[in-house]
């Protein structure tokens, strides 16, 4: 039986240490090891995206990554997005444009949007919708999420924090 070991990760800008087994998924290390429960588990087939985090600024499904694979990278969870108690523009856009209901998919949606908008500052609706393919929502019907992402795009482009 592989022994538990300590793993150093950089999470939300901080060096953190967490006890893991080799098989420990990144999502488990974040939730159980570090108490960062904003990252959620919604399926076991790597589809729903509720576990999405940023690894080196790229959206990944933390359930489909071993914690060990994140060693040496910068991991950002939803908790790391806001600064000094101020909502990030994407977070604010989701609040103001009603981009959530139950909220379970929301952290994943926001972080996928963060990746998209960092590469595509002017995404049209089809691009936004396609980029959210890997984030399931059962409550909203997606439209308000698309509107939130569009509003976030504008806010990020114009620096209206």
């Amino acid at each position, binding site marked *: 039986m592989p022994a538990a070991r300590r793993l150093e990760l950089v999470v939300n800008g901080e060096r953190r240490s967490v006890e893991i087994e080799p098989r420990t*998924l990144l999502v488990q290390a974040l939730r159980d090891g570090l108490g960062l429960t904003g990252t959620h588990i919604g399926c076991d087939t790597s589809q729903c995206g509720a576990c999405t985090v940023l690894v080196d600024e*790229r959206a990944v499904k933390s359930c489909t990554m071993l914690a060990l694979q994140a060693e040496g990278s910068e991991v950002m969870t939803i908790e790391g997005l806001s600064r000094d108690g101020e909502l990030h523009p994407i977070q604010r856009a989701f609040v103001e444009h009603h981009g959530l209901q139950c909220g379970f998919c929301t952290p994943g949606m926001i972080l996928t949007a963060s990746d998209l908008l960092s590469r595509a500052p002017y995404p049209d609706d089809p691009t936004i919708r396609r980029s959210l*393919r890997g984030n399931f929502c059962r409550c909203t019907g997606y439209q308000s999420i698309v509107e939130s992402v569009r509003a976030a795009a504008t806010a990020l482009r114009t620096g209206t924090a």
Partner: protein
Amino acid sequence: MIPAAVEHVRASSLEDAFEALADPEAKALAGGQSLLPVMKLRIFRPSVLVDIGRLELDGMQLGETELRLGSLTTWNKLESAPELERPSLAAISECAAEIGDLQVRNRGTLGGSLAHADPASDMPAVVLALGAQLVLRAADGERTVSAEEFFLGPFTTALTPGELITEVVVPLVDGSGSAYVKVEHPASGFALAGAAAQMTRNGKQRVAVTGVGAHPFLLPEAADPLDALSEAEIYGDRFAPVEYRRHLAGVVVRRALERARERMEEGR
């Protein structure tokens, strides 16, 4: 949902990797987007994961006569690489853009997927249609295998134990056009039927199909592709029976050929 217990070693070089892969229960881990899902469902239980994810196998080199792709190139890179924006290579980025979703494309790799050889995965059809060669390396040396010789059955390839794909080499065919068209399963996103086509100026066409049989396959070049499909062994299931899938294969083949032709024409 949690994989069975497994050891993990990170390979800092190919030699390292080969040494660790000498264990028959060991499995190479690249992006993990094909391997980790089957481990999480406990369908597959290697005893050791040999993590090759940090090896420098992700280069992209466009030469005069060929395109060389490192096996650790991610879908994300293939989807947006400017080098691939030409009619002859369009099928590659077109296909990469339809694999999985944004998150999967950030981590999934070309080599990882080809080695996994899911009979409904997309890129095998493209490498077949473009006549690609796969560079395989093992502890005892290197060999090159054509895509046609590589895909042997469901999740079965020509890779021998301990062997890794290091590069995919795509010959550049001047003035050709290529395309990838698929009809996806609405749940899994995998191909119910997918076709990659290459159309060359001298009238030659190469078409490969995925999602409908034991493995992705190239249609015989001389024959009419639709005739060839009517002879092929097609799998069906409760959602998409054989008759529908065979018909669908014909549709995507036709559409891929049309689009490849359009691209070839626009490249004139």
